[in-house]
């Protein structure tokens, strides 16, 4: 028997009972749709996080005080192991050959007042190399200069978000005065928006000279981090080693495992973020896959009812010469058509949902061909898996029993 004829028979039967076919299909549509939507949303948010982390600066290494060691006893609380001298040593040492720029930073949150407006935001003490390392531009005015740092000047550069919060939309704060912890600072510039949100929002910041931050504002002598820009991506590992050994030497630590600082590359941060999102994606897709299985059981249920209902027809077909495999094929094909068409609609609806949600959440929209192919494969497999038993039941009917059935 030709496949075309078999297909025609199956399609005829399916269209005779549109409501039932539609309901059977719905389970697969919802299952495949949610799997596709969740995988796509996961991939989209991963992409967004990647671009955000990459926008922090290229070839970036971050030295943080404290250690990543998880075993052993180590005091928590204030970590004061990195100093401005460490940063100076990195930039002047002859042993360091792979570092292009270095930016020591001290950041802390503070209340900032301008006129009647006030906001609580992150105040970052920086040096002039900060914009290069962190990939930041100034839209109006100037950034912190070397003279500002040396003179411990009370000048500030605002992030665009902070500028709006303090001075209102569209105003130019350059030349105005703000008060940080009751000290007056003159605004000398505003940075370009990087469009960040929530996670590591670089638009909601106030930059001041590092010396001013340490001595005048917060009264500390240590750094919260040192950002290092390597010469190129290929020397990242070398840069990390050179900086690491120099700091170990300066801190008089012999065992690298006992280090009182840690060096993270963007890849590390990216890796952690990716791990988190992919765990969530897997988890949610797993839940969606359960709904797919439930949909498959729904199809089996309906197919079993169909076999009982069509007992007479099956008997007749057998009497007219249909062999077992033809009856099996026909019922199996019906199940596969339902799941395949359901999968098709599901992929489409899932992509639509993902697109709308990613627009609403402001993350990028991504969908991989492999996940679509996988979804189709799974839907056809579900058709075969859950169509098999009803099809066997139909093929095993004895023609006389079937013909006698009322």
């Amino acid at each position: 028997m030709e496949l075309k004829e078999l297909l025609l028979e199956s399609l005829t039967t399916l269209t005779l009972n549109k409501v039932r076919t539609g309901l059977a299909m719905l389970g697969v549509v919802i299952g495949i749709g949610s799997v596709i939507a969740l995988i796509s949303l996961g991939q989209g948010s991963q992409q967004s996080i990647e671009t955000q982390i990459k926008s922090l600066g290229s070839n970036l290494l971050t030295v943080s005080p404290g250690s990543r060691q998880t075993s052993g006893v180590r005091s928590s609380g204030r970590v004061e192991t990195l100093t401005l001298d460490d940063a100076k040593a990195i930039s002047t040492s002859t042993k360091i050959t792979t570092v292009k720029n270095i930016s020591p930073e001290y950041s802390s949150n503070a209340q900032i007042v301008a006129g009647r407006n006030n906001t609580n935001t992150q105040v970052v003490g920086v040096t002039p190399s900060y914009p290069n390392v962190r990939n930041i531009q100034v839209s109006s005015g100037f950034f912190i200069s070397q003279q500002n740092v040396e003179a411990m000047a009370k000048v500030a550069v605002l992030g665009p978000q902070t500028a709006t919060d303090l001075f209102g939309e569209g105003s130019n704060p350059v030349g105005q005065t703000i008060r940080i912890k009751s000290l007056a600072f003159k605004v000398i510039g505003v940075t370009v928006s990087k469009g960040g949100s929530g996670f590591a929002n670089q638009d909601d910041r106030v930059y001041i000279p590092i010396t001013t931050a340490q001595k005048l504002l917060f009264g500390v002598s240590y750094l919260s981090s040192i950002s290092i820009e390597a010469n190129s991506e290929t020397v990242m590992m070398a840069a990390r080693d050179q900086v690491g050994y120099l700091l170990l030497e300066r801190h008089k630590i012999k065992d690298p495992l006992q280090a009182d600082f840690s060096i993270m590359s963007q890849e590390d941060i990216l890796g952690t973020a990716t791990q988190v999102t992919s765990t969530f994606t897997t988890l949610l897709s797993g839940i969606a896959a359960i709904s797919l299985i439930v949909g498959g059981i729904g199809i089996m249920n309906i197919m079993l009812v169909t076999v009982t209902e069509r007992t007479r027809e099956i008997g007749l077909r057998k009497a007219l010469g249909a062999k077992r495999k033809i009856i099996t094929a026909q019922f199996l094909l019906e199940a596969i058509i339902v799941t395949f068409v359901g999968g098709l609609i599901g992929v489409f609806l899932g992509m639509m949902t993902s697109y709308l949600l990613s627009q609403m959440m402001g993350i990028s929209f991504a969908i991989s061909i492999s996940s679509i192919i996988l979804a189709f494969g799974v839907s056809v497999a579900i058709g075969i898996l859950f169509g098999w038993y009803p099809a066997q039941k139909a093929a095993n009917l004895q023609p006389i029993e079937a013909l006698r059935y009322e």
Partner: protein
Amino acid sequence: MIKVLHLSKIYKTGEVEVKALDNVSFTVKKGEFVAIMGPSGSGKSTLMHILGALDQPSSGNYFLDGAEVGQLDDDQLAEIRNKKIGFVFQAYNLLARTTALRNVMVPMIYAGMVKEERLKKALKYLNMVGLSDRAYNASNQLSGGQQQRVAIARALSMNPSILLADEPTGNIASQQAEEIMEIFQDLNKRGHTIVMITHDPEIAVYSQRIINIRDGKIINDKNNGRQQKLLTKSKIKKWN
């Protein structure tokens, strides 16, 4: 053509054994029109199922066209039903909401016949039973008599060795029943072998030979000969 030797069929329901057929033997020659008569429960339906290769006997032999049918597996039986037997059922058993043409084509589809040939034959047999103008009507748009004629066209489509009819007029008004019998007699004249199961003596008289069966045994087997009621004023004369 058909040769049945010491055929028995025993049904077991719990401890009770029921002999539906008890040592039945007879032969049907090519070109015969035989009616098998008996009241309900006589075993005539069981006999018809075995003759139609729908069921296997408990003991005895059944030869169709010289081949022993009792020893075949499911798929071989399906092939026999497809190629050698044309069924006409009491309840017509057409596929619902399917055109007359496609209903006639079903056995040919199972036989793997090419589309052009299928179409040609289906139209030819529909014409033979006087329904060429109804070829594209769905089965449920046809009257009982018309549906049974479609079923006859379907039974003929594979040019089977025997035409097996189970109460073919049981659901049809007497006027149309006569038309069906007329078609059977015409087919018989053209050389088709017909075995018809019926409980109705008024239908049995259209056949050449009547086998009476009761309690699973043949009680008489007589040539209808001169008593055969011939229908000549045929309204269906579209033979080609």
